[in-house]
């Protein structure tokens, strides 16, 4: 099995864009943006992810990053159905609203500061809510580093349930504390663009390889790629 993985991975790396494009009109093209070379990096994780979903034409994907035209069109043109939900931004807004409601609560009222666990529970009642096994692939991007432990464990359970058997998760981890906060935009089948963005969440921790494997413990298998920029891309298969 390991050899099978290795061989397939090699062929996937050789094939820059293994998925056929969907014909038809496109309003705004995935090549509309012209990223500068400095903020584009080769993504082995993306290449591998594309290979894993390549036989699921018409399949469903979930993008937990911000909605970028290029990313959406990239998958739509290949015939996938894409759902997007900027989870980190939703989490930040949720916390802001909670904070606001606590502030408004009068002194002596029953409203007390709730635990991180209850906040996480409450957040997930309205976020990332889909039927089980809805997706063939989930792009989490730069997410897990920014979630506190209580939310992280619940999110992992949720994502596992959302994935169809054989589905995969693409995620990014930092091997050192990042200088700035980036969002990720797909440029093509093997490159992603780092888009600087205002920090919307505090970088919680740096995961060691073993810890990454632990939080994805339910998954069947995993594979990580570490780049020169100390960014670790991970692929996890249900």
């Amino acid at each position: 099995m390991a050899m099978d993985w290795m061989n397939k991975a090699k062929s996937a790396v050789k094939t820059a864009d293994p998925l056929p494009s969907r014909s038809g009109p496109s309003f705004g093209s995935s090549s509309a943006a012209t990223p500068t070379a400095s903020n584009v990096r080769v993504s082995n994780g993306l290449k591998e992810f594309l290979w894993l979903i390549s036989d699921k034409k018409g399949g469903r994907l979930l993008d937990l990053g911000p909605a970028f035209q290029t990313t959406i069109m990239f998958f739509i043109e290949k015939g996938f159905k894409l759902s997007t939900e900027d989870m980190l931004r939703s989490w930040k807004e949720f916390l802001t609203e909670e904070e606001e409601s606590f502030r408004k609560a009068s002194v002596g009222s029953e409203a007390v500061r709730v635990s991180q666990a209850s906040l996480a529970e409450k957040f997930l009642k309205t976020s990332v809510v889909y039927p089980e096994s809805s997706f063939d692939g989930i792009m989490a991007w730069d997410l897990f580093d920014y979630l506190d432990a209580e939310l992280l464990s619940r999110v992992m359970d949720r994502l596992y349930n959302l994935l169809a058997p054989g589905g995969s998760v693409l995620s990014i981890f930092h091997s050192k504390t990042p200088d700035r906060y980036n969002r990720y935009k797909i440029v093509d089948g093997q490159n992603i663009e780092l888009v600087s963005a205002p920090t919307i969440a505090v970088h919680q921790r740096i995961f060691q390889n073993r810890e990454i494997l632990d939080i994805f413990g339910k998954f069947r298998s995993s594979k990580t790629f570490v780049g020169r920029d100390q960014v670790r891309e991970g692929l996890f298969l249900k």
Partner: protein
Amino acid sequence: MWGKNPEPKPNTPAAKAPEPVAVVPPKPPVAAVPVPPPAPASAPVYSAPAPQMNATASRVGPGLKIHGVISGESDLIVEGETNGKIYLSNARITVAKSGRVQADIEGLEINIEGTVQGNLKASDRIRLGAASNVQGSLITPRFAIEDGARLRGKVEMSRPGEMKIAESKPAEKVAAKAPETKVESKPATDNKGAATVPAAPSAPTDPNLRAAAARTQGN
């Protein structure tokens, strides 16, 4: 180990059930205010300009709230609040930055700059501006989203002819049980007459081609 799994995959995220809406008996538009065409938005990524509205576009002005179903042929600009449904199959619909819409929207072109909770269905194109915040599914043959736009939902590309077929049948069904439309207004602005058409349900066709099914039998 890393082979593709053959199990069938369920469906799509649950779509929000449209709320029953109160509707007024159909009446002609109170005052269709001509609106000058908006200036094209500057967009870093998006190459196409914002859709131009024609001179007869109607407007739900700021401070105006409409509960119910909006239908007809005129282009529409929403700067206030709208709950219910917006069904303008041959018209352009714009939700301005100040616009707040809790409704399914169907139209020829849909241009969102404000906040929308509901499914969008356009037979020509959908454009989400940089300040837009949309929760709901998008079905359209052409789609553009500016950086900074927030989208929480599903994006599906349809073929140009698909929507026309889907929208005619439900229109007739619901027209019979049209409830009343309730219009709340602070400053008097214009509103449109009512008719009733539900958003045509998006057909969740999910042809799950799993070519490598046999490979994973052993996993």
